[in-house]
């Protein structure tokens, strides 16, 4: 639950974002006050004008012209103030939105992988996009609405009381009724909306299941069965929807009716007062126009308050992200890795994702320059953990990893990571042209270099056959390309930079074996003379490796080359026999 203090803190931090625009914000508030004041003043002037139209031959034209001039001036001033106010509001709002998004994105670059892996991406994205939008709508726009709403109410009350106290009292007494009525209806409809959203949720689930697997439905000739199931849910949804929609749509007529009540009250009561000479007809018409508008800010405010609460919750979510502790910065005086021989050693490394739940313990390895290290084990055994540690996506808990004798914590992250070429099984390509994707690690590369890298990765021939060749735009999921082709592009991307050390995740069953063969060839080419860590699935890779790490349940259970491990008759031997013999 959010405490009051948290809300205050959230608001305080939001104000910090506004600080840059305080002059503009001040101007906007001032203009809001001007707008409200003038908007309320115009009906008075109109009323005064009406008072001059007493009857046949009794119209005070000079007086009328004077008032008309005033009205004209007030209207022009209001319009100008409103225009400037709207402009500055949207400028501030959109700029704050931009600032917050950029801060959030900056933070995403700084956050440790530990954080990003533990949080659902969808949630983080919705914070950066949807929450910031809701915040803009609710907090910033809502605030101006709230401010003008409150000012309007105060101003109206002021003018009402100034004009005539008894009439003002009538208005003050009747208006809360509309408020209460709206509240009453809202609380009643809430449960109906809940019922509706439950029925809708169930129906949506059914739709996703059946329509999402329409071919399966056809294959098993289940059309009639699902049709019936759907009809039943549909009837329920219809019932719930009708109630929810009808009851919620009563709110407007009811508040309108209350408004009419106020209007009638002011009219009748005002007429009585007017007969006694308490007010003029013009003043009465002015009061009537107030009565017409008086409930509007009330309704708006009640809407804005819920929106503000929602916006505050959104603000808290995005601020939480922005204030998350970033990864420790590179150590002062950290070395920039330039020319590496590629000797990687792990000494007594211990690591766990969850404190207290040991994963890797006391693990040592000495990979000499140019050696091939194969990592094998059943799926889910934690092979990627090792990649995480080598790339310093995660820091070891104890022990150390050294490259060319330097602890990697004493090397800048950037230079360490660019010394590795990494190809993961989950291919990631971004929306853009094939050329841009290959060039990702080396934006200054020439077209010829790109093509050469693609050739080396056996990707050139299929790229050439694409409609726009290297300029073909691919979507995020690499749409249109097969898994194998995407993998080849990822290899080409590394080929272009070709750093001294490699981390490769071999493809598994999702790729057909002949494409796999091509990828193997590409891998083999890359590995020549480079220290390589390979998550290996294929026998040939494993047999040719200098060191094989056998992992099981997050632990490294065996270590050695193919022959020694096989002769040990341990887990590796078992794995080998079950997986690679028919």
């Amino acid at each position, binding site marked *: 639950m959010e405490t009051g203090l948290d809300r205050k803190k959230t608001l305080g931090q939001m104000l910090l974002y506004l600080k840059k625009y305080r002059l503009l914000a001040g101007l906007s508030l001032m203009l809001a006050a001007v707008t409200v004041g003038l908007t309320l003043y115009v009906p008075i002037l109109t009323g005064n004008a009406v008072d001059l139209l007493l009857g046949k031959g009794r119209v005070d034209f000079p007086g009328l012209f004077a008032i008309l001039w005033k009205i004209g001036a007030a209207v022009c001033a209001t319009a100008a103030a409103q225009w400037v106010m709207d402009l500055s509001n949207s400028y501030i709002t959109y700029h704050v939105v931009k600032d917050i998004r950029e801060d959030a994105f900056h933070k995403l670059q700084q956050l440790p992988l530990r954080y990003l892996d533990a949080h659902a991406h969808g949630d983080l994205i919705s914070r950066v996009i949807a929450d910031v939008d809701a915040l803009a709508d609710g907090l910033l726009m809502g605030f101006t609405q709230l401010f003008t709403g409150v000012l309007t109410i105060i101003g109206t009350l002021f003018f009402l009381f100034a004009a005539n106290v008894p009439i003002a009292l009538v208005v003050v007494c009747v208006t809360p009724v509309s408020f209460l009525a709206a509240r009453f209806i809202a609380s009643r409809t809430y449960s109906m909306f809940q019922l509706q959203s439950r029925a809708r949720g169930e129906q949506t689930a059914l739709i996703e299941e059946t329509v999402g697997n*329409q071919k399966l439905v056809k294959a098993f000739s289940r059309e009639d069965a699902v049709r019936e199931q759907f*009809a039943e849910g549909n009837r329920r949804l*219809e019932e719930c929807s009708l109630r929810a929609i009808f009851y919620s749509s009563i709110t407007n007529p009811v508040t309108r*009716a209350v408004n009419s009540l106020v209007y009638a009250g002011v009219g009748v009561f005002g007429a*009585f007062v007017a007969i006694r000479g308490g007010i003029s007809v013009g003043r009465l018409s002015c009061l*009537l126009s107030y009565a017409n508008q008086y409930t509007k800010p009330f309704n708006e405010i009640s809407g804005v308050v819920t929106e503000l609460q929602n916006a505050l919750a959104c603000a808290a979510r995005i601020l939480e992200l922005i204030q998350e502790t970033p990864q420790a910065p590179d150590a002062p005086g950290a070395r920039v890795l330039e020319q590496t021989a590629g000797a990687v050693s792990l000494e007594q490394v211990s690591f766990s994702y969850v404190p207290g739940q040991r994963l890797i313990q006391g693990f040592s390895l000495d990979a000499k320059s140019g050696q091939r290290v194969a990592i094998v084990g059943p799926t889910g055994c934690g092979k990627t953990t090792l990649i995480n540690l080598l790339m310093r996506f995660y820091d070891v808990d104890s022990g150390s990893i050294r490259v060319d004798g330097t602890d990697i914590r004493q090397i800048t992250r950037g230079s360490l990571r660019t010394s590795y070429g990494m190809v993961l099984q989950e291919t990631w390509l971004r929306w853009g042209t094939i050329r841009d994707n290959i060039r990702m690690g080396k934006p200054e590369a020439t077209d010829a270099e790109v093509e050469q890298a693609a050739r080396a990765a056996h990707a050139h021939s299929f790229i050439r056959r694409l409609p726009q060749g290297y300029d073909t735009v691919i979507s995020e999921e690499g749409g249109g390309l097969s898994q194998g082709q995407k993998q080849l592009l990822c290899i080409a991307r590394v080929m272009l930079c070709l750093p001294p050390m490699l981390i490769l995740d071999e493809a598994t069953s999702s790729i057909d074996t002949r494409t796999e063969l091509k990828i193997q060839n590409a891998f083999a080419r890359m590995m020549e003379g480079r220290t390589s860590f390979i998550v290996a699935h294929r026998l040939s890779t494993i047999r040719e490796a200098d060191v094989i790490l056998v992992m099981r349940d997050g632990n490294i259970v065996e270590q050695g080359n193919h022959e020694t491990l096989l002769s040990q008759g341990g887990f590796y031997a078992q794995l080998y026999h079950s997986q690679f013999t028919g």
Partner: protein
Amino acid sequence: MKRLKTLLPYLSDHRKETVLAPLFKLLEAAFELLVPLVMAAIIDRGIQNRDMVYIGKMGACLLILAAVGLAASITAQFFAAKAAVGFSARLRQALFDHLQSLDFTAIDRLGTSAMITRMTSDINQVQSGVNLVLRLFLRSPVIVFGAMAMAFAIDVKSALLFAVAIPLLALVVFGVLVWTMPLYRKVQAQLDKVLRLTRENLTGVRVIRAFHREEKEEERFRESTQTLFSGQVFVSRISAIMNPVTYVIVNAAIMALLYTGAIQVNLGNLTQGQVVAILNYMSQILVELVKLANLIVTVTKSVACADRVAAVFEIQGTPWEQEGKGETPSADAPFLEFDHVSLTYQDAGAETLRDISFQVEKGQTVGIIGGTGSGKTSLVHLIPGFYPATEGTVRLEGRDIRQIPEQELKGRVGIVPQGAVLFQGTIRSNLQWGKPDATEEEMWQALGLAQAREVAEGKEGGLDAEVAQGGRNFSGGQRQRLTIARALVRQPEILILDDSASALDYGTDAALRAALRSLEGRMTTFLVSQRASAVRHADQILVLEDGRLAGIGTHEELLERCSVYREIYDSQYPADR
């Protein structure tokens, strides 16, 4: 727009409500229009004549108007809600039924996510559109023109000002609307881009950090938020015009009204109260025009959604061919035969399958092997007639399968597709997909064959164990075995396993294959796989490459004759090279 007509019949069940809702809304608007007249009477007769009783009567009149207005409005809301909800319920059911009638080609054309969107958010949007139209589309114009008419009734000369002011106001309100709508769409597209960059950055975080591109990414992001910002400010600059300008127009009209009113009053043609009434009408018009503009935005969206929904109804599946054109099963014919079969998917540039011919005897096991995209799944999908062959014929017992009634053919085939999908319900309800009237015994037998007996036994409730949506509460291997059991429970003559053992461990896979072998002779089995080990024991193996049959024969024959098969085998068994 023409398409929308096809959706109208779904309103016909609620014809009464559809007519009554706007009618009652009209009534409410009419009562609202009367209010300024009553007020004018209070001023002109009540106050001028100091007639308290008259004022009281008119006050009661105002209250009655409010009460009747409220009643009319609530009635209208009810009819509108009933018509809109009833309409969407019927439309949803009709659309669902229509989707059930589509064939595979049409399903491909539509796409799953599009179908789901049409069924859910599009129809919801249409529903609120219908609701709004019934409630407001008549009200706003009636108020606008009604107010003008009332003004004319009071004083023609003053009312002429309305004829000038209303078009001007409409021009501004709708002009801004028309101008900004495409701009808002552009802004939305830019926001989508910002979203995409964020998502890409998260999914690709390892690659980005591996290449040390963090700063470059931030730069990219800043560029796109800057574009978004400029777009937003530009749009808001235009829409900011609307409020001040309409305010000026209305007040200019009021000033003019005061002036002409003053002249008329001076001449004795008008009373003070009448001037107040005319002024009231002018203010009412502005409020309604702004409402109307907002309404148009919502309705435009709904119309777009309705159009998309209507477009789905236009897509028709090709009907199953003429049933039983005299061909009868023949004992001499091979059990299943592909006769020069080619398949080109609709809208596809190239053939997916080309000139495939083979014959299968009853009870045989047939392996199908080939790379991704070689056409394995397409080939087996022709057997239950999911797609019609573009050329050539598929025959079952000598009969063209397109001439066997659809239900009969599908009933004889059990298919286990890729991606083991279960449905929410129980294990029992899932098995009933295979055979709706299966007995308890048949179910356990199928589970046993599929090596899934312990899956059901291990869960509380056995056959009645709950299956969560998508079968989330089962592991991949368990799901796969249950989908195999689902296909087996109907004791199909033909069983198709489309790469269905991929999530099984070695031991289970072997046990499954042994169990299936025990059914040999009774059931013809097709095994689709990328692994030579899965198909090597089959009676015949079809090797596919790029949609063509690259080889056919037993494992040993193919190793000898078929280079594609040898290549696949070698890549998987390098030790034997």
